[in-house]
């Protein structure tokens, strides 16, 4: 119990948002791509990845490499091969549909096809007689039927009742999604209360419906209307929706439809739970795996420096960060994802001491700072100024014994340097690079470079960085 409470106390609100957001993204991918080939391939890839992890964990070296390679290539193949399918899924939907819409599968049931076909026949004034059997067997009541056993389609119904079709005068029996028989002769009704304009089709429909629990649809060739005979009732149905409702009630499809919806909702529910479990699992593997330590040497970035000041010196240029996190996170991160920043907005001229805290370190989520070396650093800031300083040649070596170097003329004799106020305060001479005198035998001239120390000193843009030295030697007396 304590372990559970401790675990719950370590979960941050960001973690909840993290899992929820990614679960929703995964669920939306499922909703968008379900039923497509892309989805099936994605599922296959997920299995491949899972298989690869198992191969790694049990030490199957070649298998894990092979599966890893296949997974990597498969990702590319998906994008290339299924680009049209992916595009059609994304293009066909607006942003709202992509983010939160649900596209129910639009499956045209046989009833809808029949309803469409019936009213099309009525519009064309093609007579038709369609029987939907109930629970009772019709074999004893009907005659001369021709076995058909074809799937219901609008084109098929239209062709069955086409004028030139030999079976168009008989009835077609539809059961489920199949046309069972065509050209069926139905028993005629003997009722006398039927309207006088009812023809043979109407009487046949009434005859079967009176004798059985079947429902019969009649399309009147003369009037171009649709009638439904059920039991002893024969009624005109003018609206498609009404006919569909009557048919649904007759064949019990309503319950089937509800069952379908329930099944779809169940599928979505499973997808939701699956997404949450999967993402939670991934989240745990990333964040709560075995704690791993690593060390990075990260350069320090300085920000918010007063533009009037310059960094003259720092005690260190980089710090060693000892980081901890789950193995997966630590393995996947590199030094480029880590930044150490120091705010110099409150720094003053002269040396400033800063302590590097975790707030100064930008890390990927789930990775933590264990230790910083060194934890304290000193940054020396100064206001840059320009100053003219005399130049002196730094002679080295040994002049031949018989010679004396009596004079040297420098051009220029002084140079303008830019550096910090405090820095330049202690500098009264700029020295040249070391000039060897071992080989000097007579008066001459050389050109030398300056040796700026400290290195942060700069020569003013309008000053020469090459110094011409004309020296005079004479014989020792």
């Amino acid at each position, binding site marked *: 119990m304590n372990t559970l409470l401790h675990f719950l106390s370590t979960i941050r609100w960001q973690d909840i948002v993290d899992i929820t957001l990614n679960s929703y993204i995964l669920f939306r991918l499922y909703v968008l791509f379900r039923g497509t080939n892309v989805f099936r391939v994605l599922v296959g890839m997920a299995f491949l990845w899972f298989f690869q992890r198992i191969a790694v964990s049990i030490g199957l070296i070649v298998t894990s490499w092979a599966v890893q390679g296949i997974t990597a290539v498969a990702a590319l193949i998906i994008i290339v091969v299924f680009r049209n399918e992916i595009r059609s899924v994304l293009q066909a939907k607006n942003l709202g549909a992509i983010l939160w819409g649900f596209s129910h599968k639009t499956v045209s049931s046989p009833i809808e096809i029949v309803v469409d076909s019936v009213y099309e026949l009525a519009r064309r004034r093609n007579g038709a007689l369609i029987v939907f059997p109930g629970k009772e067997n019709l074999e004893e009541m009907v005659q001369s039927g021709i076995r058909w056993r074809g799937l219901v389609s609008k084109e098929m119904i239209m062709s069955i009742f086409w004028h030139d079709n030999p079976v168009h005068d008989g009835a077609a029996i539809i059961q489920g999604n199949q046309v069972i028989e065509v050209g069926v002769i139905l028993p005629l009704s003997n009722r006398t209360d039927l309207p006088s304009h009812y023809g043979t089709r109407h009487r046949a429909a009434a005859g079967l419906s009176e004798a059985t629990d079947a429902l019969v649809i009649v399309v009147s060739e003369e009037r171009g209307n649709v009638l439904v005979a059920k039991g002893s009732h024969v009624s005109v149905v003018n609206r498609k929706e009404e006919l569909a409702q009557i048919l649904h009630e007759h064949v019990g499809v309503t319950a089937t439809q509800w069952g379908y919806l329930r099944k779809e909702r169940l599928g979505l529910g499973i997808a939701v739970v699956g997404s949450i479990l999967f993402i939670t699992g991934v989240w745990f593997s990333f964040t709560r795996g075995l704690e791993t330590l690593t060390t990075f040497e990260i350069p320090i970035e300085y920000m918010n420096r007063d533009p009037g000041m310059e960094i003259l010196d720092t005690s260190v240029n980089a710090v060693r960060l000892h980081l901890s996190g789950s193995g997966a996170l630590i393995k996947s991160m590199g030094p480029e994802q880590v930044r150490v920043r120091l705010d110099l907005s409150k720094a003053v001229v002269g040396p400033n001491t800063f302590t590097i805290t975790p707030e100064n370190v930008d890390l990927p989520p789930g990775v933590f700072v264990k230790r910083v070396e060194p934890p304290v650093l000193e940054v020396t800031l100064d206001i840059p100024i320009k100053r003219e300083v*005399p130049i002196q040649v*730094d*002679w*080295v*070596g040994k002049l031949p014994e018989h010679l*004396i*170097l*009596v004079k*040297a003329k420098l051009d220029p004799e002084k140079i303008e340097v830019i550096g910090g106020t405090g820095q330049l305060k202690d500098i009264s001479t700029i*020295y040249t690079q070391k000039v060897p005198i071992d080989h000097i035998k007579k008066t001459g001239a050389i050109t030398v470079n300056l040796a700026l120390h400290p290195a942060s000193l700069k020569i003013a843009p309008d000053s020469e960085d090459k110094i011409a030295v004309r020296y005079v030697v004479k014989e020792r007396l």
Partner: protein
Amino acid sequence: MSSISCRICKKLSIFLFVLLCIDFFLSSQALPQNNGNPLSTPVSKKLTLVEAAMCEGIKEYIPQNEAIVFSMTIGKVSCFTSFDPVPEKTFIYHNWFFRDKLSTRIKLSLQPPCWSTFSSIQLREADKGPWRVEVIDQKGNVFDTIRFSITD
């Protein structure tokens, strides 16, 4: 009234006598230096540096082997300075800097009417590198800066 004016005349004559005595004393101290440098005639009353040089040694008030580079092997280097005029007895300093860091500060006295003086340092292995000597007065005014190097 006559006794008061008599006392004032007496004090005035004593003051004039003291002034004459002081003038005679100062002129006699400047002479030996005038003999050494007969061309230097005090035109202004400002202390003026007329010569400054680094050398290997001083012989009879004259710098020997003036140079800007000195070998460690000579063991000693000197800074020779000559002032003319020297209006009054005063002090100057030879500040020896090794790589911009003050190494030694030598106080030297000057006597009117003109005076030459020098300071020296013994050379050690660690002294190799660029040096300079600043010649300054008591108030810190720099007369001259002489730059040189100590090498192998």
